[in-house]
């Protein structure tokens, strides 16, 4: 039952109508493609600088982009590159998920409870400043040279970082929305999903993107130190053989994969999470 034939006064119709929102959304997508184009041009410029430097150096320890490209094609054709990259990606995914889930839970709990925060803050500082290498060595010594030790070592290195970011986000949660949730009796799950997580989305995005960047680097170190597969293991092998072209081929391939994940998974997720801001 409508109480008014003319629902809104002209003053109330608001600055943005649906069509306007749609136009803004499309403009946002165009901006994204523009950014992507600029990134591509920038990368091409980097490759050009690399080629020039290699041409000047004229050394087998400084191969040009073409030689590295040919090596990538050859390694891909042999099946080695996809296999090693796949193995490393599995480790990155497992340790990333573990670190984000555990780190978020710790950060959320510390952000919500001042007592927990007071007690565990010094633990967090301790683990934040523990060198990654020590954690890796200790995990291999305690658990052996296996997958579980490797993934645990990488996750342990990232958990404190995620916890700190999510704790900051949790401490910044708006009490006004908590009041709203209390009055309208939201259950804990609804409160978490509808009130807290959307406010924490930018913090999750920051933790996720910085986490991905750090985790894959630590995974390579772990593979180099104690495993017999993965990109890190391959890099170690090429290092023993002074095969710089092989090192660059694997490094470039793996960076390309991470770049694709960043561009086609992380960024779209972040855009979707922030759609309401547009």
């Amino acid at each position, binding site marked *: 039952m409508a*109480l008014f034939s003319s*629902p*809104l006064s002209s003053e*109330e119709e*608001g600055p*943005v109508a649906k069509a306007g929102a749609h136009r803004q959304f499309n403009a946002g997508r165009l901006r994204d493609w523009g950014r992507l184009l600029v990134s591509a041009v920038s990368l091409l410029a980097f490759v050009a600088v690399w080629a020039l430097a290699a041409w000047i150096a004229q050394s087998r320890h400084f191969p040009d982009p073409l030689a590295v490209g040919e090596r990538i094609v050859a390694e891909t054709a042999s099946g080695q590159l996809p296999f090693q990259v796949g193995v490393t990606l599995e480790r990155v995914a497992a340790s990333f998920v573990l670190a984000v889930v555990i780190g978020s839970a710790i950060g959320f709990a510390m952000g919500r409870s001042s007592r927990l925060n007071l007690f565990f803050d010094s633990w967090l500082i301790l683990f934040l400043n523990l060198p990654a290498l020590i954690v890796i060595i200790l995990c291999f010594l305690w658990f052996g040279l296996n997958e579980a030790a490797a993934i645990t070592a990488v996750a342990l290195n990232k958990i404190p970082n995620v916890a700190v970011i999510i704790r900051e986000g949790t401490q910044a949660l708006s009490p006004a929305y908590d009041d709203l949730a209390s009055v*309208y009796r939201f259950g804990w799950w609804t409160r978490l999903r509808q009130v807290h997580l959307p406010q924490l989305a930018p913090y999750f995005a920051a933790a996720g993107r910085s986490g991905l960047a750090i985790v894959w680097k630590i995974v390579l170190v772990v593979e180099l130190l104690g495993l017999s597969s993965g990109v890190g293991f391959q890099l170690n092998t090429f290092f023993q053989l002074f095969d710089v072209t092989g090192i660059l081929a694997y490094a470039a391939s793996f960076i390309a994969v991470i770049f694709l994940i960043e561009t086609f998974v992380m960024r779209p997720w972040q855009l979707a999470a922030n759609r309401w801001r547009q």
Partner: protein
Amino acid sequence: MAARGKQMASVSAFSVNILRKAYGSGEGSRLAIAGLSFDVREGELVCVLGPSGAGKTTTLNIIAGLDSNFEGKVAFRDARPQRLSYVFQDPRLLPWRTLIENVALPLKGKADASAIAATWLDRVGLSGCHQLYPGQASVGMQRRTSLARAFAFGPTVLLMDEPFVSLDEKAARELRSLFIALWKAERVTTLFVTHNVAEAAELATRVLVFSASPARIAADIDIRREEASGDNAELFLRSALDAADASHSHS
């Protein structure tokens, strides 16, 4: 005076007895409320008038259960109201949810939550705007949504904290008319905080005038009484408010 009912139930919906409410502790503490006691009867629309800082919002928060750090008691007719709605001073919509999702959220668990939410958005004049995000809606539309959410919840008690503040006079007048129409249809026991005397005179069946901090009841005015009704209401309330201020200054 559209909101005034001719027959009011005399059953108390809830009673408030706040002996003491202070902010802070030790020497720096500030006494906000001291000995504030009143009843609200079922079906009443009680306006609370008082100067800024008189503890009006604090009182609403205590009734809503958002502030339990006080001495005293708030007793509802039923041990606890099954449903209490609160229209805050700001619309307080979740900006990451559309208008219809905001209205439907408190109804979670009901199979027809979306249908109920849609009906209420239509009733407040927002048909065609259901899928907008709050950031895409004007302040007036956000306030209508907040009103829709409060009524859609099916409250037995409705608390409103200056819900039409920061609107221009025309929009505020329209929203008051809308609220009166909804209230007449639903007859929810309502406690409405305002510091706008004209608004209280237009809406209320009864007006409580709070003295300045620490809050206490300076006047309890039944608008249906002859001397406080009709065109006299606003004048009567203004003099009651002045008297409360004068008494506070004197004390």
